[in-house]
């Protein structure tokens, strides 16, 4: 039997297969089922898997194989003839409950005829439940035509949603708009019971599929398939009940995805409702004014425009519903079309004017000058002159010059909160004081990943190494497990884990597990190794760079005390540790006692530390023997820059450090916007001198920036990194981060990937959180962030600018010029800048800065190469001038004239 059955299947003649199984007893059919279930088509029937074949032969092989597979599916299905037999087969032979049925209901290569023929002979009593189960499967597909056939034969009951979904889901490759339209025309019951019910369900019509359209093969969203089907119906004059218009209109109030609702709108338009139809449903249409969907709003206003002059139009309902739109943002076009309709209703219905001033005044909150002016005009028109000022009063701070003029009111001087410039008190911190604290501090490090916590842990461990319990490994095990169970991407955690691993394992020598290619925080790796060494040597000397105050600062009093401990015990300090400690210094006046102690320091670093603390003004680079102590150059150069960020230090001009950025001169870098174009794309790229921001891994290696020694933190010699690593990096250079910030500048303000988004966020967030100053080319970074594609970056930049203005640390010229160059060279859309300028409730100091920025944008403008919406810049410049009561600069007048030409 086995061979005969296999041969029949191999022949792909399903009729003979069904005839063969038809003659078998139930026992034999189960036996056959066993053979079929364990049949390997390649091995048992074809003798090969076909992958070695090529060209036509390969194609033929797989076509045949698919037919064989379909034939086997129908054979398996035919082995059981009713629910009971199927259940037995599932229980005894492990038959899949609906695997074969699912294949037969999709689009089998042998078509649907076999399954229909089989069911005709043995009507199924199990289909309802199984079809529901198949429909729930994620990747299942049930061909609607077979589903309808099953229903017509009364083998399944009608389930509207299931049927509608089956019809409207368009699977790849095997559908055609013409064929589907014809099928529905030929099956009026299906047309009525299924097709016309689609409006009730949020169907996956926004998925992309491929099908045969009327004119060509298409790859598009499924809704276009059904729009075309409807077009075919309309062309063929197939009667579509007008209730569909009502249902589609109603559906616009569903909380569905916007593109889905947009599709319903396009279908309504296709059905071309009459004015009378719209008027019949006008109550519904007024409810659309609450919609979140701009397209629905525009559609509503379009309908209102069509019907508002009709006699049956409900003007009162319009006046009651329209105000919801008055405060909506970014609906200027909709409002510009709605307001004349509102005006028409008010003009023709005196009784509706009573409450309108209150509603119209809400429209004064609109940011767009034109929209705001329109509301102002209407307010003046429908409000007694004496009352205008009262209605306008709460909004004066947000009114533009034009609206103020229309309303005839003066702008109030805005009360702005006075921001205290008083420095916040620094919060002291200390390392763990006992074993329990140290143990739980590991958890804190894993949780916060902060430089401060990790460095405090190292300090605590060094100080407490004498009291570590014998069973420390047992106690450490939960943390060791936590660290090893996770995949860490952050370098901070990789180094921390590496250290804990070494300590937990009780290694005698430090075993490196982190790849040497990681290069963003070499200091942490260095530090963990020297802490490990100290444990081995029972060395309890303090670590100089351990923070003493939040977030990561070292107080000069404590630094001097720590240095004295080294000197009193004749131990050598670690120079790298001292460089970081000096970089992390708190900029406060040290106590007298500390100054005295500083004077008595003995090490060769003493002059640098004395200079840093203000004990001495002279830069003494000379060593004990040689004319220059090269070892101390990183310390000296950074101490000088920390102390005097704006100064030039010619003292370093003859040292090997002369070529290192930030050493001799403050960090200033030129930049330009480079345009790269092809037929289909244009990129505007920010190029900083010396390829400074050419740091990302996918950039051309030829243009790599120059490498600098790792100890010169102010030259930002380390690799780019992300999140917590960024915070560790900035803890090493808090007093002069300009070069570091420029490294993080993405080369484009639009079209970035995640790394670009993060680069314009985390460093900036750190500047704000730690209240750090930017001095020189770092402002280029702030400029880019202010017009960057991510809103969070723009807001952080605006916040940072405000912080700098309040603390008088802003470099207005550099910031304004950078933005001017970027905007004039189309590096970022003008709108990003105008959004910042138009932000309501800004203090005068910010507006003054904004004026300088706009002025620079105009000055940098090139005739014939102006960015889109450049006019808006000129308008805002004029408005700001008026608001600040300033006169236009004559150079601007000339420039504007030249630009107009």
């Amino acid at each position, binding site marked *: 039997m086995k061979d005969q059955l296999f041969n029949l299947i191999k022949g792909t003649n399903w009729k003979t297969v069904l005839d063969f199984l038809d003659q078998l007893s139930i026992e034999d059919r189960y036996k056959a089922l066993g053979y079929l279930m364990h049949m390997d088509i390649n091995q048992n029937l074809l003798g090969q898997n076909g992958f070695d074949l090529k060209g036509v032969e390969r194609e033929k092989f797989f076509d045949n194989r698919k037919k064989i597979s379909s034939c086997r599916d129908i054979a398996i299905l035919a082995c059981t003839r009713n629910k009971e037999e199927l259940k037995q087969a599932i229980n005894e032979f492990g038959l899949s409950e609906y695997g074969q049925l699912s294949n037969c209901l999709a689009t089998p290569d042998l078509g649907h005829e076999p399954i229909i023929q089989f069911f005709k002979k043995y009507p199924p009593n199990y289909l309802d439940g199984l079809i529901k189960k198949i429909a729930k499967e994620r990747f299942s597909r049930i061909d609607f035509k077979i589903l309808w056939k099953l229903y017509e034969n009364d083998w399944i009951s009608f389930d509207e949603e299931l049927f509608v979904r089956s019809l409207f889901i368009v699977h790849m490759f095997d559908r055609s708009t013409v064929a589907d339209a014809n099928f529905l025309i030929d099956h009026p019951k299906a047309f009525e019971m299924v097709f016309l019910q689609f409006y009730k369900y949020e169907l996956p019509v926004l998925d992309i599929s491929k099908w045969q359209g009327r004119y060509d093969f298409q790859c598009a969203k499924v809704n276009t398939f059904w729009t075309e089907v409807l077009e075919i119906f309309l062309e063929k004059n197939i009667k579509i009940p007008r209730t569909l218009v009502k249902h589609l209109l*109603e559906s616009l109030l569903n909380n569905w995805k916007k593109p889905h609702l947009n599709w319903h709108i396009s279908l309504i338009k296709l059905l071309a409702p009459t004015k009378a139809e719209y008027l019949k449903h006008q109550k519904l249409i007024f409810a659309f004014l609450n919609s979140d969907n701009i397209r629905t709003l525009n559609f509503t206003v379009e309908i209102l425009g069509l019907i508002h002059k009709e006699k049956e139009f409900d003007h009162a309902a319009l006046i009651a519903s329209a105000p919801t739109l008055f*405060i909506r943002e970014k609906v200027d076009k909709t409002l510009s079309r709605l307001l004349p309709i509102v005006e028409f209703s008010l003009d023709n219905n005196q009784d509706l004017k009573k409450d309108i001033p209150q509603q119209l005044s809400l429209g004064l909150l609109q940011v767009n000058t034109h929209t705001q002016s329109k509301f102002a005009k209407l307010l003046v028109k429908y409000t007694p002159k004496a009352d205008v000022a009262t209605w306008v009063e709460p909004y004066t701070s947000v009114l533009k010059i034009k609206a103020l003029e229309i309303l005839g009111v003066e702008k109030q001087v805005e009360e702005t*909160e006075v921001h205290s410039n008083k420095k916040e008190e620094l919060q002291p911190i200390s390392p763990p004081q006992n074993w329990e604290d140290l*143990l739980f501090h590991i*958890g804190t490090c894993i949780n916060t990943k902060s430089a401060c916590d990790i460095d405090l842990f190292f300090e605590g461990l060094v100080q407490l190494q004498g009291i570590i319990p014998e069973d420390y490994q047992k106690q450490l*095990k*939960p*943390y060791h497990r936590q660290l090893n169970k996770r995949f860490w991407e952050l370098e901070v955690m990789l180094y921390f884990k590496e250290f804990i691993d070494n300590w937990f394992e009780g290694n005698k020598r430090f075993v490196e597990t982190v790849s040497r290619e990681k290069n963003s925080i070499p200091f942490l790796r260095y530090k963990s190794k020297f802490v490990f060494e100290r444990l081995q040597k029972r060395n309890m000397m303090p670590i100089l760079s351990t923070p003493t105050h939040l977030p990561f600062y070292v107080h000069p009093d404590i630094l001097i005390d720590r240095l004295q401990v080294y000197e009193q015990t004749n131990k050598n300090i670690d120079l790298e540790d001292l460089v970081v400690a000096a970089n992390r210094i708190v900029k406060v006046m040290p106590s007298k006692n500390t100054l005295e102690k500083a004077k008595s320091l003995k090490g060769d670093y003493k002059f640098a530390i004395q200079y840093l603390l203000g004990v001495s003004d002279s830069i003494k680079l000379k060593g004990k023997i040689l004319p220059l102590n090269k070892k101390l150059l990183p310390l000296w150069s950074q101490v000088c820059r920390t102390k005097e960020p704006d100064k030039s230090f010619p003292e370093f001009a003859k040292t090997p450090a002369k070529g290192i950025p930030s050493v001799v001169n403050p960090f200033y870098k030129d930049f330009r916007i480079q345009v790269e174009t092809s037929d289909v794309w244009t990129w505007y790229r920010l190029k900083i001198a010396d390829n400074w921001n050419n740091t990302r891994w996918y950039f051309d290696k030829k243009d790599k920036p120059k490498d600098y020694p790792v100890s010169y933190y102010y030259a930002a010699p380390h690799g780019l990194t992300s999140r917590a690593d960024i915070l560790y990096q900035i803890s090493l250079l808090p007093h002069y981060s300009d070069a570091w910030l420029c490294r993080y500048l993405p080369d484009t303000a639009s079209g970035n990937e995640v790394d670009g988004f993060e680069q314009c966020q985390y460093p900036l967030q750190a500047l704000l959180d730690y209240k750090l100053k930017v001095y020189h080319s770092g402002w280029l970074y702030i400029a880019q962030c202010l017009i960057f594609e991510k809103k*969070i970056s723009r807001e952080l930049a605006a916040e940072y600018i405000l912080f700098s203005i309040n603390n008088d640390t802003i470099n207005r010229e550099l910031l304004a010029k950078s933005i001017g160059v970027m905007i004039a060279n189309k590096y970022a859309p003008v709108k990003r800048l105008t959004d910042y300028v138009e932000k309501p409730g800004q203090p005068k100091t910010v507006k003054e800065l904004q004026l300088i920025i706009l002025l620079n944008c105009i000055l940098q403008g090139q005739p014939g190469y102006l960015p889109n919406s450049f006019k808006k810049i000129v308008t805002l410049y004029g408005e700001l001038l008026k608001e600040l009561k300033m006169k236009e600069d004559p150079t601007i007048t000339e420039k504007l004239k030249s630009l107009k030409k």
Partner: protein
Amino acid sequence: MKVVDFAYQYHQASRLGTIADEKALLLSHCSEIETDNDVSCFFYGRFADSFLASQCLVTLAKTVRSHFAVAQGLHMRLRDPIISVGSGQLRFEGFSSCNGVYARVDMDEASLDGEFLNAGCTNIDFNNPTIRAFNEVGRSEKLILGIGEKETNFITETENIIEKKVSLPNRWIKGLGNVQTYLSDMECAFTLTKIEAIQFFRTVPKTPVKSDYYIVKETNKCYLSAVAKPGTLRIAGVHRLALLDRLLTLVDSVSFYADESQQSLAITMHFKNIRMLFVFSPGVYRGFSGEGKTLESQTMVLPDDYILGMNQLCKTNEAFDANLLAIESNVDFKLINDLTATLSSIGLLGYDLHQQQHFYRRLPFKLNRLKSLNPRFANAQKLVANEYIQITSQNGGAVVAQVKGTDGVTHKVILDSNQNRCTCNWYTNHQDKRGLCKHILGVKMKLEEANS
């Protein structure tokens, strides 16, 4: 034992129609508790301001359908809200699909004109036609609302919708307890006028934002800042605030509430006689279900009879005053406090921010379902029962214990007056921000057991 999600089926769909030429909406209800399920009608009457009430309910529907944390296998679904009827009040409440936003509409007697026929708490069918019906209510229109069916001349054009079985995930129900605990710790930070509120909400980003934002209130303005400052309120997933947009033209004032930890933020929109509360979870990917906030005061296991007995003592929506109840019922204060913690943890006590007090409601779920929703509590009980906890030292208020963990790990737990600490993964990740870990809770239970 894992309790499967609550699957239910309304006997029929909520229906829209007319009663004596007035628009009427009869909401179907369903409860896991049979006695409540058998109630034909809880409330029947009109809203004083049907337009306003409808807009609030549309916003509630929008909230329960919204989904802010996109996770694999989780789909945006409309979860039916629950309603508590009693003490002259209607409270509609629900969570967003992701469990990160809780919304409640509180309607008091002045906002309703109708009959409170039965007190109780039930799920109500918020199907698409229902939401459309609320959407369609005009400003001057009246709407009759029935929570359940009453014999009336109800005429409906609504097509016969066959209601399908829907499931309400346990995490949804679990959040009901946690959110009330958050609310009870909150205080009003500031209130905005209508114009201030409109101006503030205009600054809210409409697209998803990963970073936290901070709400800054200055003398004459309120705005969002990306940077924390003293006195600001933290909001995670600030784009979630867009849910409130629709109601801004109708609002009288908007109050902002937060607790000291600023983990969660609550906003109340005040309308004439109606209030709408929104509570935002501490993060977009942190639903209220996983918060474990209720565990902190829950170290006693109370018999079911005590919990069920509360239903005899309190009515739905009635103010719940633990002290008064202790005095009136002559019950020990400690017991009543434990009872309050237990009731709160299983969602039987709601919290009214405006009135600053708890209210009672018997949720439409069986007690064993409600009690099964806290796996951390159950796991802590297991640790105690299996004697996995060893108190190694107890000195004054400080307790050191070792708790057997999995894979040969022993966790160290230290309880002292300042802080409870544990070496487990949960504590490392969440510290004390999401309730106690099972080890600390277990040690507390063991101590409680020893003391009693």
